């Protein structure tokens, strides 16, 4: 007898037929009908129309039928709240049933019906069930409190259910304790500040006792709860560790990982010289190794967490390298994780084995994996200095295989090795050059060009090689073009006589025939450098490359700390810090300030620092930042540990917190007060989505729809949908944000310099100002500094178009008159929204003011922008 027969009636009258059957007098027929209804429900068919008929079947002694009706109710009560009320009486009655199974079923189902009206009736039965004599009912009721809290938190607090729940932690039955803990943790999650889980030594003791006796799932809840406790001293720490250690031998891998989390966290508090500390370290390795023989999905999560653990405490697994060896039928996601951990564990002691393995992997079938294996060889070379030579020879062997993607990957990797160990392995260059023709990937081509440029003096036919690339210059990717430009300039500086023509050719290709601003900027900079001061050019382009710090990619210690506390969570899977989701990028800001300071104080030093090409690559480029690692370790076993992001990254958009409005452009007006104003932008801004559509996108997104579906439904591109949603997440608005405009020509500091000087010595000439600015590192023309001081106006609040016109009227025109500028001037201002506002445009027209057209985001009118761009590019490397 199978259930597939329930699908045979797919004709139109199905619902009517079922209705008739549900109202049949025969019990058997009724039951069959309910089964058919449930079967339709399971495959996603809408059978909600049958609600009253199904509810009518609820009053029955037949447990199976009752269960089925309850199943149905849970599914549809939300959409039929009025109907659901009909069922209340039966629920209340069932909560008094002599059979504990029915009592539990009733209270459980009632909790699942997320209808406000029902919750009022739920309170009394729930109170009774929480004190039921039967532990099965109590444990079900404990979970029900969490459900009710989710529907109506206030009600739960008013009714005192939270206290009852806390009392259940002291229940005699371990399963009840576990469920109470789970329910309290869930409630605490939505009330971060409430003192629900009052973790004190007494509670801890109760939890640890229950830990030994409750079900595996309960153990996970309790262990996760324990992880939030802060022991008073190392003795308490040790005693908790001792009582948690047996969980490492549990058959359920989630229990094991949660136990690892607790141990990793409490271990921090143990003195390292304690004997027990060493014992504990030894006990951690075997269960972690065993996790790797579980199903691949479990392995994956375990590996992501092990990745954190080996960064925090490499000693735990340092002898277990072999378990991370890749089997050819491992799923690809397991293979890649294993590879990553192998590199983290690589040391002088085991590097020979590791290299032999990596070489083996480089002949595998899966292309992605092979590539990563080749890269791994390079990372080994950078990490373990003693192995570099061996790595290089392994890579050369791989190049001999002539497998195209292996060769390309190997060349990219060898470039990195050259950067780490300059002038050490150039003997291999000849072999590399043999493979020049087979390179078709931009990264590999760029790497090869870099090598040729860097070692141009040792390659006899360097000019020919580079020239051959030049032929298809415009078809190359930007990466290759930039690299080629730099390489030829290097070549020219090293062998100026033979390559004059070549350098001329590349410079004109880069500056005149290219519309790529990056390339053009760099071309101009080189051109100017070479034409003005070849000695300086040599110094700058061929400068000794400074080393960069080794551990750039480890997880930040504090973050690692936090993640370790959340081992086993989602955060520990993603290994990402919350800041990764922050809106503005402090990194960039900080760096900007540093450069600014550098340029203003010591331009020569700045040149050396900034223009020094390609810092040596760090050995740890793939490590997680130390703080992030720290945090992730705290989250071993969580989703975060799989994605290596901190748990807080998983908080969905903080709806409560409104982003502060971006600062108005008041500040920017102070910094460019002299800019002769205005323009009517004609540069094509693409058609904007109406706010309606944007709101609709966000609504659909909130409803859980994917970008793709939204896009299809509204007929917009996926990328557009994504952009709107990202913006909404970041700024909580769909309206247009104030636009940033091009970078200021004179930076705030320059402005304050001008203001200060002018304030103190109102007679300062623009020439003097210009020179001062130049000393501070900003080169501008006299005109930019402006023809004397225009009136300054303090702007209160946010400026709009009308206000701007007022300012122009009151201050700008008198200034023009005072400065005796005559008729031959042009007003120039950027495309700030108020500058382009209708009111402003009309005002300018009325006053017959000539306005310079200002292309949007134009770097050309902002000469210094070119330099910033170059800086940014270099900084980004």
């Amino acid at each position, binding site marked *: 007898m199978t259930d597939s027969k329930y699908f045979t009636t797919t004709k139109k009258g199905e619902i009517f037929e079922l209705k008739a059957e549900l109202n049949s007098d025969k019990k058997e027929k009724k039951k069959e009908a309910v089964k058919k209804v449930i079967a339709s429900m399971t495959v996603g068919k809408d059978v909600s129309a049958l609600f009253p008929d199904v509810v009518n079947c609820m009053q029955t002694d037949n447990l199976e039928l009752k269960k089925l009706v309850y199943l149905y109710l849970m599914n549809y009560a939300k959409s039929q709240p009025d109907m659901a009320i009909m069922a209340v009486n039966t629920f209340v009655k069932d909560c008094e049933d002599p059979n504990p199974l029915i009592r539990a079923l009733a209270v459980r189902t009632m909790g699942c019906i997320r209808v406000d009206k029902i919750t009022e009736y739920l309170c009394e039965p729930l109170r009774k069930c929480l004190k039921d004599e039967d532990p099965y009912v109590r444990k079900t009721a404990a979970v029900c409190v969490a459900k009710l809290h989710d529907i109506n938190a206030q009600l739960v607090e008013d009714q005192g259910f939270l206290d009852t729940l806390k009392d259940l932690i002291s229940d005699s039955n371990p399963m009840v304790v576990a469920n109470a803990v789970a329910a309290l943790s869930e409630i605490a999650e939505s009330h971060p500040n409430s003192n629900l889980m009052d973790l004190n030594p007494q509670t801890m003791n109760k939890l640890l006792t229950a830990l030994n006796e409750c079900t595996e799932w309960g153990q996970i809840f309790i262990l996760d709860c324990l992880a939030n406790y802060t022991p008073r001293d190392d003795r308490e720490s040790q005693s908790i560790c001792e009582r948690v250690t047996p969980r490492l031998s549990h058959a359920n891998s989630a229990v094991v990982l949660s136990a690892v989390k607790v141990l990793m966290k409490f271990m921090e508090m143990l003195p390292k010289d304690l004997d027990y500390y060493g014992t504990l370290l030894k006990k951690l390795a075997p269960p972690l190794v065993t996790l790797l023989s579980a199903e691949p999905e479990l392995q994956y999560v375990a590996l992501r967490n092990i990745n954190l653990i080996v960064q925090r405490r490499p000693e735990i697994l340092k002898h277990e390298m072999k378990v991370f060896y890749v089997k050819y039928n491992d799923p690809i996601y397991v293979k890649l994780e294993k590879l990553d951990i192998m590199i983290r564990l690589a040391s002088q002691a085991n590097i020979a084995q590791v290299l032999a393995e990596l070489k083996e992997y480089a002949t595998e079938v899966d292309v992605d994996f092979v590539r990563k294996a080749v890269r791994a060889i390079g990372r080994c070379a950078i990490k373990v200095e003693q192995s570099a030579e061996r790595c290089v020879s392994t890579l050369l062997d791989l190049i001999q295989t002539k*497998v195209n993607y292996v060769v390309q990957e190997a060349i990219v990797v060898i470039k990195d090795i050259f950067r780490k160990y300059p002038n050490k392995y150039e003997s291999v260059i000849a072999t590399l050059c043999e493979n020049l023709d087979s390179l078709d990937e931009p990264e590999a081509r760029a790497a090869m060009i870099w090598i040729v440029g860097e070692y141009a003096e040792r390659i006899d036919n360097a000019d020919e090689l580079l020239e051959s690339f030049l032929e298809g210059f415009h078809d190359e990717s930007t990466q290759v073009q930039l690299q080629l430009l730099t390489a030829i300039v290097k070549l020219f500086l090293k062998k100026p006589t033979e390559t004059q023509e070549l350098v001329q050719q590349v410079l004109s290709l880069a500056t005149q025939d290219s519309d790529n601003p990056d390339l053009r900027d760099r071309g101009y900079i080189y051109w100017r450098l070479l034409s003005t001061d070849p000695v300086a050019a040599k110094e700058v382009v061929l400068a000794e490359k400074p080393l960069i710090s080794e551990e750039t990619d480890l997880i930040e210690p504090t973050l690692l700390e936090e993640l370790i506390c959340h081992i086993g969570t989602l955060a520990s899977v993603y290994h990402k810090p919350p800041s990764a989701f922050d809106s503005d990028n402090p990194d960039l800001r900080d760096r900007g300030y540093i450069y600014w300071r550098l340029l203003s104080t010591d331009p020569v030093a700045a040149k050396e620092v900034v223009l020094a090409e390609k810092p040596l690559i760090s050995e740890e480029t793939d490590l997680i930042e130390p703080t992030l690692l720290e945090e992730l370790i705290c989250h071993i076993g969580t989703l975060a540990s799989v994605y290596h992001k901190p748990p*807080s990254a998983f908080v969905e958009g903080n709806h409560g917190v409104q982003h502060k409005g971006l600062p108005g452009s008041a500040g920017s007006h102070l910094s460019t007060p002299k800019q002769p104003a205005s323009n009517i932008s004609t540069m094509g801004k693409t058609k904007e989505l109406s706010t309606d559509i944007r709101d609709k996108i966000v609504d659909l997104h909130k409803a859980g729809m994917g970008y793709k579906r939204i896009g299809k439904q509204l007929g917009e591109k996926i990328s557009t949908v994504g952009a709107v949603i990202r913006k909404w997440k970041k700024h909580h608005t769909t309206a247009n944000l104030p636009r940033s405009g091009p970078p200021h020509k004179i930076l705030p500091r320059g402005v304050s310099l001008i203001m200060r000087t002018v304030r103190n010595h109102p007679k300062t000439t623009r020439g003097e100002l210009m020179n001062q600015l130049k000393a501070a590192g900003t080169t501008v023309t006299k005109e930019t500094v402006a023809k004397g001081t225009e009136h300054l106006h303090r702007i209160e609040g946010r400026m709009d178009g009308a206000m701007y016109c007022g300012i122009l009227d009151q201050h700008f025109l008198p200034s023009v008159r005072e400065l005796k500028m005559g008729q031959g001037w042009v007003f120039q201002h950027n495309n700030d929204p108020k500058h382009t506002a209708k009111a402003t445009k009309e005002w300018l027209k009325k006053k017959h003011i000539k306005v310079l057209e200002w292309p949007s985001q134009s770097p050309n009118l902002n000469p210094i922008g070119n330099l910033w761009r170059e800086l940014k590019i270099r900084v980004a490397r």
Partner: protein
Amino acid sequence: MLGFFVGEMIHSLFLINLSGDIFLEKHWKSVVGRSVLDYFFEAKEKAVNPEDVAPVLQTPHHYLISIYRGKIFFLAVIQTEVPPLFVIEFLHRVADTFQDYFGECSENVIKDNLVIVYELLEEMLDNGFPLATESNVLKEMIRPPTILRSVVNTLTGGTNVGDMLPTGQLSNIPWRRAGVKYTNNEAYFDVIEEIDAILDKSGTTVFAEIQGVIEACVKLTGMPDLTLSFMNPRLLDDVSFHPCVRFKRWESERVLSFIPPDGNFTLMTYHVSSQNLVAIPIYVKQNISFFETGSCGRLDITIGPKQTMGKTVEGLMVTVPMPKAVLSVNLTASQGNFTYDLATKVLVWDIGKLNPQKLPNLKGSLSVQAGAPKPEENPALNINLKIQQVAISGLKVNRLDMYGEKYKPFKGVKYVTKAGKFQVRT
């Protein structure tokens, strides 16, 4: 650790077949639209094999955690920070339960038993909290659909659901029900060991370890308290126990002391790691090579006994996934049969018993697609084998004692060694 969405661990469950049809969905709270699965389907499209779909996927509002079992994806939709292992373990437990109830875990069998499946899911998870996942307990609440029971049900009007509260939920030993009675009291233990190994071209062991498991079938009356001891328990590097095993006794005396569940269960799993010497029962001499010209290659494999502990190696089988360019094979086997699947390019050589006097050999030529470049990758050999009456690690059960009951049970221990992930690189 704050989740914005308050809610259960597992919000919804979808069962999806290989062609991407959703044939079952269950929502524990609100209904999550199927569109959330777009992210999963995207990942599935990209993956070469269904096994390669990453088990944890991130979407703007949800996390999708999936496992692949019996050609079905079990996919859980998550909204809060949840230990992913918790979810994965639970999903495997669901699949195990289906297997246990219906004899197999496949799309057809699930479709045939939709209502029971739905009831099971409801019983296993309440508001995201696992409720009853022990097979023994579940079977008392929802009876499995045996043919016999179906007949009886129709005759007597009985139902699939028990109305007795499962005792296991109440006692301190959730794995055993009270009042068990048998006329023949018996306790059998199977010690099963699997060798996971990687051998390199020259036959050297790159990596080897043993995964062991002790499966028990205990049918004893009352509340027996058992003690199982080993001759050499120090062999074991890592152990995991069924919840019934008293961990303290193991820590102090290295014996397994427990009140067993009723029926079949896994008593313990253990691990003997590569640091101890793992015996490799066979050696493999192989040569698979392709020629630069002439679009063909050669294959020659011989297998011989190595450390077999004096027992016969049986069920010997070699599986070779060939490079895609290999069109056909022209081989002769000195023993056993071989097949070459043209679609999957897998060569299977089923040898059977290993005769030390006459070593099995497979050799001949491989023909490669004309004009195709010489295959770059090296195929790896996958070995299956079985050795009865021996645990390759040398683990031996010393004795089994029973306390708490007066009768004399019948006791038995069986050993078997198998190849697990046993690979030979070429």
